[in-house]
């Protein structure tokens, strides 16, 4: 006869399993399994009709590392993601401080203003940027009125960057706000009291203490930016290839379509992300210490 404690443990274990099963099944079917398929495909090849041919090879990876088209796409996407993350951080941090330091009754409305764009579909908002940046768009209209004349804004890498920063900024601001809202600003007074000027107080006290928010925001911005393809297509004019554009094309539009090569690119992208984020965590946790 089991003791009461053993019976209770058995019952708790059963309940836990019951609660976790749906989630585990979901992840297994729709996350782990596709990942395995992608991984397997990345070592296959395709035929003239674009069908996957099951002949193991490393050719896809060799292609990616040897052709500048692919190498450049990785470098360009990493650079754009770093730039987007850094600029979002530089814009988002003061913004989050401003909101967190606002009177209590203003904080929620201000956060809502950050969130309201999400009520509209992302694609629609990017199309709206086309209207703003177009040759006969709103900005150029204003520039003409003040006598600067029309500039080419749309279909440039600058436009891509603007779109990326615009789209990702809320994902930076929200975790930053959460971290800064928890931060006790009396600590800044304490630092000043002990002889630290504003810059020293920020670097020694506020920055390390809000580092979790910076890390969370940066990761949330960096990851989707690395794989994006919509913004560079709609605002950048698909003039240069970012990772996402290439993968999308290989899967859907190439002639013939090439799922194995696309899969290899996706697998490598995940590896790149893993390495970069691990490096980032390493650096920021040293900062914290």
């Amino acid at each position, binding site marked *: 006869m089991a003791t009461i404690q053993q019976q209770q443990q058995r019952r708790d274990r059963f309940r836990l399993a019951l609660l976790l099963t749906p989630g585990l099944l979901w992840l297994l079917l729709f996350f782990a399994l596709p990942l395995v398929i992608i991984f397997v495909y990345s070592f296959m090849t395709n035929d003239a009709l674009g069908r996957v041919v099951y002949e193991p090879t490393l050719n896809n990876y060799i292609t990616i590392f040897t052709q500048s088209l692919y190498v450049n796409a990785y470098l360009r996407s990493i650079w754009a993601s770093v730039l987007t993350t850094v600029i979002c951080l530089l814009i988002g941090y003061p913004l989050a401080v401003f909101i967190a330091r606002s009177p209590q009754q203003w904080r929620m409305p201000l956060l809502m203003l950050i969130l309201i764009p999400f009520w509209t579909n992302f694609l629609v908002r990017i199309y709206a940027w086309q209207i703003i940046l177009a040759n006969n768009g709103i900005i150029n209209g204003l520039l003409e009125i003040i006598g600067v004349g029309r500039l080419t804004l749309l279909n440039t890498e600058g436009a891509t960057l603007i779109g990326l920063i615009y789209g990702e900024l809320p994902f930076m601001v929200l975790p930053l706000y959460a971290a800064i809202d928890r931060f006790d600003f009396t600590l800044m007074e304490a630092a000043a009291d002990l002889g630290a*000027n504003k810059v*020293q107080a920020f670097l020694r006290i506020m920055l390390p203490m809000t580092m979790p928010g910076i890390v969370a925001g940066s990761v949330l911005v960096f990851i989707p930016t690395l794989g994006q393809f919509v913004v560079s297509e709609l605002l950048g004019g698909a003039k240069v290839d970012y990772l996402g554009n290439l993968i999308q094309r290989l899967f859907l539009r190439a002639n013939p379509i090439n799922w194995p090569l696309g899969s290899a690119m996706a697998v490598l992208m995940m590896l790149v992300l893993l390495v970069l984020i691990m490096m980032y965590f390493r650096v920021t946790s040293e900062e914290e210490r």
Partner: protein
Amino acid sequence: MSDSIAIELRDVVKRFGDVVAVDHVNLQIRDGEFFSMLGPSGCGKTSTLRMIAGFELPTAGSILIHGREMGITPPHMRPVNTVFQSYALFPHMTVAQNIAFGLEMRKTPKDEIARRVKEALELVRLSGLEERRPRQLSGGQQQRVALARALVNHPEVLLLDEPLGALDQKLRKEMQLELKSLQARVGITFVFVTHDQEEALTMSDRIAVMNKGKLLQVGTPTEIYERPNCRFVADFIGETNFIDGVVIGRDGNYTVLETPEGLRFRGLAVRPLSDGTQVTYSIRPEKVRLLAPNGELPPNGLAGTVMTVNYIGSDTRITVRINDRRTIDVWEQNTRSTLDRDEYWQPGEAAVIVCPPDNALVLSE
């Protein structure tokens, strides 16, 4: 204790929007003294402290530290350090790093930092906890770290903003005595903000009582308790019986007042009062004597009836009714150890109250 002035406030005013937090305060704090600022919350004591530290700037008036006009000098350039109410220890740093912070900011050499941090930890009896984080410490220990972090910089003045507020009663009493002896050892001027009158009386060389932004009285604990200069101070410090009346004349050193129902009381007036002035008579409950009636009333005596008798250990607190709208509280020390409650006063018993005029005050306002 020297007579030189550590801090001087000249006609300092602080307004937050329409609210006057500090209202024309003039104050001199002497070098090496333990100076308390006492008052209810919102009386302006913390605002005053924050202006000395430089976290707030006065709307008008000037603040001098050792004769130097502070003007708009930012906090990090002022020769003072603060112990915050919440301690404001840096949670991501160890105890040693917290204490070293001020010295690092002043570019002190590394070996000197190490030596002074060690000394500061010894001073507050925390040696051995260097590598702990603030959250691993008890409230009392955090309090000591905050003290060490401020004192290690050898400030000209140490500002303390209700530093004992978060501690439990017993620890609080211990820290009061410890702070006082610490201050005597380091010889630094302490400016201590509190709303706890007992704390202020226990620790201070001098106390400033504030209310509604105004500085009401500055004096030694004895002066503040025995000779409050207005009704608010008498009420805020300790307990007292108040009786409102009108001045009807003088009797030697004493001022005589009469209540609306015709009772007369005599007491010391803080300032000369002309006949007809509305005044408040104040006598502390431990200074009233309670006698058994023996036929005739003694001088300054009043006949009454005992209403309630509360035994609180050290004292017995008795409320005596002297007429249908007035009661007077009397505290008698329990000088005898006896379990027999019959030996004390009983509710309903007739008694005579004696209010010695030397122990009573006549206050205006």
